[in-house]
């Protein structure tokens, strides 16, 4: 585990993604909408205050955060093919399953700072805005913050697992990232958009990553209006219950990771 964390920790891409994710997360959740016209926002200026921290931040995870996690997942395994390091790792002592499990666990750990830094940066931003607006500072309950962070991690984890699988299937990074974003934007996005008019699609869209991610976000206080109007990552399809969302994402994370592990275990390393 220490070794795998070293691999991820010393990789520039990890820090670049963390930096961009945090900056853009705060920028699009607080800076841009507040600077444009806070009163005109769907949640009003209150959405920028500390009490709305959990809901405001979590709504950025299901797609925007997903893309970052997807890239992390792709890099964690796809790059190994590019460098040829899988053969080096697989000729050490542990079994392939153990190597894969260790790498997945390390990836899961690396997602934690992605959640923590965004919540920390969001907390600072919301506090500053509250001070600017001379509004009282009411922080959400610790339990809500913990649940929101856990949900944020789960949403990132499912996309990272998708990235891992795509990286393994394509044995690289570029195609995997392209296919992953295409899946999120086009397949899930378009099919979800048609779900209202084509009733047959609704059961399918209810198991999509975005549908379940946004459902969790909504359950934690994210405004449905803001979910429907958040640019390329917006989602207007059907929402499910928060618990169902968690269950679906847990199953997806486990299934995607297991599938990636199975492929890695069965496939020749050339």
């Amino acid at each position, binding site marked *: 585990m*220490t070794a795998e964390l070293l*691999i991820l920790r*010393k990789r520039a891409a990890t820090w670049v993604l963390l930096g961009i994710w945090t900056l853009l997360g705060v920028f699009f959740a607080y800076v841009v909408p507040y600077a444009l016209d806070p009163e005109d926002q769907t949640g009003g200026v209150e959405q920028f205050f500390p009490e709305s921290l959990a809901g405001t931040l979590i709504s950025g995870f299901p797609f925007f955060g997903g893309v970052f996690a997807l890239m992390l997942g792709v890099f964690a395994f796809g790059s190994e093919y590019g*460098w040829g390091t899988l053969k080096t790792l*697989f000729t*050490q*002592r*542990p*079994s*392939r399953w153990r190597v894969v499990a260790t790498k997945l666990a390390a990836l899961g750990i690396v997602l934690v700072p992605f959640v923590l830094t965004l919540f920390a940066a969001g907390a600072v931003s919301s506090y500053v805005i509250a001070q600017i607006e001379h509004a009282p500072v009411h922080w959400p309950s610790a339990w809500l913050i913990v649940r929101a962070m856990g949900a944020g991690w789960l949403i990132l984890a499912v996309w990272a697992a998708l990235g891992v699988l795509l990286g393994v299937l394509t044995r690289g990074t570029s195609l995997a990232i392209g296919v992953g974003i295409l899946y999120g934007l086009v397949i899930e996005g378009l099919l979800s958009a048609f779900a209202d008019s084509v009733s047959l699609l609704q059961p399918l869209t209810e198991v999509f990553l975005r549908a379940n991610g946004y459902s969790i976000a909504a359950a934690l206080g994210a405004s449905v209006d803001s979910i429907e109007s958040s640019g390329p990552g917006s989602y207007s399809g059907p929402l499910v219950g928060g618990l169902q969302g968690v269950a679906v994402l847990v199953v997806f994370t486990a299934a995607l990771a297991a599938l990636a592990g199975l492929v890695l275990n069965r496939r020749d390393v050339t």
Partner: protein
Amino acid sequence: MRVGLRLTPASVAPLGPAETRLRADPEYAPGRMRKPRSSRSFGAVASDLVIETSGLTKRYGDALVAVDTLDLRVRRGEVYGFLGPNGAGKTTTLRMLLGLVRPTSGGATVLGAAPGSPEGLARIGALVEAPAFYPYLSGRDNLRVLASHARVAEERVDAVLEEVRLSDRAGDRFATYSLGMKQRLGVAAALLKDPELLILDEPTNGLDPAGMAEMREFMRSLGEGDRTLVLSSHLMGEVEEVSDRVGVIRDGALIAEGTVAELRGRAGLRLRAEPIAEAARLVATLPGVDAVTTAAGLIEVDVDTSRAPSINRTLVEAGIAVAELYPEQTSLEDVFLELTA
């Protein structure tokens, strides 16, 4: 290729035995010749087999048979040279032995375990094709990662870096290493587990002449003691210099196997003398001579090379001018080219 001791004339004048002087060919000075290690036993006892394959086959689709029913046996403590032209199936074979590639049919045991099993891998060090490491990590960090996976004490990292003379650059990123340094790091990684079996696939690939010489020297030291070394290469020189036994593979099949000496066959004598026809006729009548052929002004004599002095004496006493008389050994390269043509 001329090997060993060469009898050379001081001039084109015929030489008597007393006038013949011996010149040691520096390229084959005894000090550089590989000496058999007393600890080795080449008696083929099953438990002494480090690698044993049975009908090992790898097919890619219907058209390509990379390895074809390969039966390979490598004994404990020997240096086994695995020769073959590019694309012959050497690397695929080694990948199957390491569990990286699954055979289509047949099987193998490596150190008594299934290829790729943790029990076996714990005792094997390998460098397969180009050394592959994380480019942004230092050489030391790369080895630390591998040591962690292999459950090897971190002290080994500095030890093997020292062994391959990379300590000075161990803190630099792998991406900044020269090709020779990358190869040495690859060997260091293979040595981390202080393995019983070391598999090196084309370890001198891409190295300049100095790097190749250095790597060959290093490989000689790696093969000392009880460690088994499997060395795959298409470079005859390096295999010939360090191997105890050699297997030649072509189109995925083992087409020859034996010690280097066995593959090269018995050395004969080459003779340049005047008149050539009379010399050839006379030599053919001498005891111990199996065959005499003449070509391009040279007489090739199939005879034990220890008979060179008596042949020389006989010819000189018969009034035949001997210009040159030297032992000639078929090189492994000649054998290889003949086998793989």
